[in-house]
């Protein structure tokens, strides 16, 4: 008898790979993605304020998702690509 694997791994993403890590945040443009969870905007802006004060990054764009459950839309991704060097997201409960 054989076992039949019912699982699927992540779908292949071609040449997608993590971006190079910047050696310093000084002078970099910071994008924020607010997933709309309660207080996520407060937390993100506190974080951004500290990143600016301690490391010299400046917020250039804040994007607000339709909901925590929805993916970020293409227009927002495009704007972040052109207006930010790094992005902070991922706020939970």
């Amino acid at each position: 008898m054989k076992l039949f694997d019912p699982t699927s791994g992540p779908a292949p993403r071609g040449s997608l790979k993590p971006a190079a890590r910047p050696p310093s945040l000084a002078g970099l443009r910071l994008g924020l993605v607010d997933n709309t969870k309660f207080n996520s905007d407060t937390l993100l802006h506190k974080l951004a304020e500290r990143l600016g004060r301690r490391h010299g990054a400046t917020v250039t764009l804040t994007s607000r998702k339709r909901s925590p459950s929805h993916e970020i839309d293409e227009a927002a991704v495009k704007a972040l690509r052109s207006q930010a060097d790094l992005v902070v997201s991922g706020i939970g409960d």
Partner: protein
Amino acid sequence: MARTNEATSGASVSTDPAALIEAYYDAGWTDGLPVVPPTEASIADMLKGAGLRGDEVLGEIAGRNTVVVADKVAINAVMAGCRPEYLPVVVAAVRGLCHPDFAYHGPASSTGGSAMVLIVNGPVAQRLGINAGNNAFGQGHRPNATIGRAVRLTMMNVMNTRPGFLDRATLGNPGKYSFCFAEHPEDLPWEPFHVARGFAPGDSTVTVYASNSLYQVYNQLAAAPEPLLTCIAGALGNLGAPNVKGFNQALVVLAGEHAEIMRASGWRRADVQRFLLEHTRYRVADLKRAARLPGAVEPADETTWRYVFESPDDILIVCAGGRAGSWSACLPGWGNKWTRAVTTRVEETR
């Protein structure tokens, strides 16, 4: 990335059925209940049941880097105990889960621990014997038990929705094993649920809907819609319900005697929805005192009402359950309009 269905590449696994079942446990592929070990023949028969090729893509969820392919769904359906003719319903449900309006990530992964409620309408329900009558939510009916289970196994094994990983339910609920029922096709007080959602009466459909819980509403004395619906409104809008703060959807399932009250009264679906919307509201002050809204209570909050539902259409109404008994059920939806119920057509033949 190459996919293979055979985990063992032909390596010998015990022919002892109990040992084979244990092997699936050991691999972490079950929902906690024993599975039916698939064979090449049973997987092929399952795919044939829906007229699918093994490599057909049934859906994608880009944000989770997930692609759902037919052969994996077929394997999970065999494991769940489905008959091949059930697979079109499973496939329709999976397509619903992958629909952008369902916004799978939240209801699948939230601490809220939603069951994926599958509501089947149309000829396929009777043809497959999907229970819509006594004990519609309960045990004892193979299609109800195994179709819902196949969808959950697919979520776990194919859509990476495993407890402790991308399923972060705080409590979960028993409906996460399986939750599938049909709308009762006879003596409906109004048009069938799927017709209300834009399908033809002869269409077969499955609606996927994420709900944190189920609670039954009892009223043996009501002989008219108003008192009965007042009770249902109380259940829908209880202060602890997730609905209260966020204008999400809710599902109301009217069983026989309660559905008959509606039919005899001549109330239409829209009348019921409107009544429930109007009778599920709180003063803002009460929501703040219960910490369901933030902030201190202001004088104006004492006379400012906040409604639980934004639109009558957010209240989904289905008729199912036994003819005897004064029971209905409320199933609050997950999230603050972050997911919507999705109805898809069941494609039985190709």
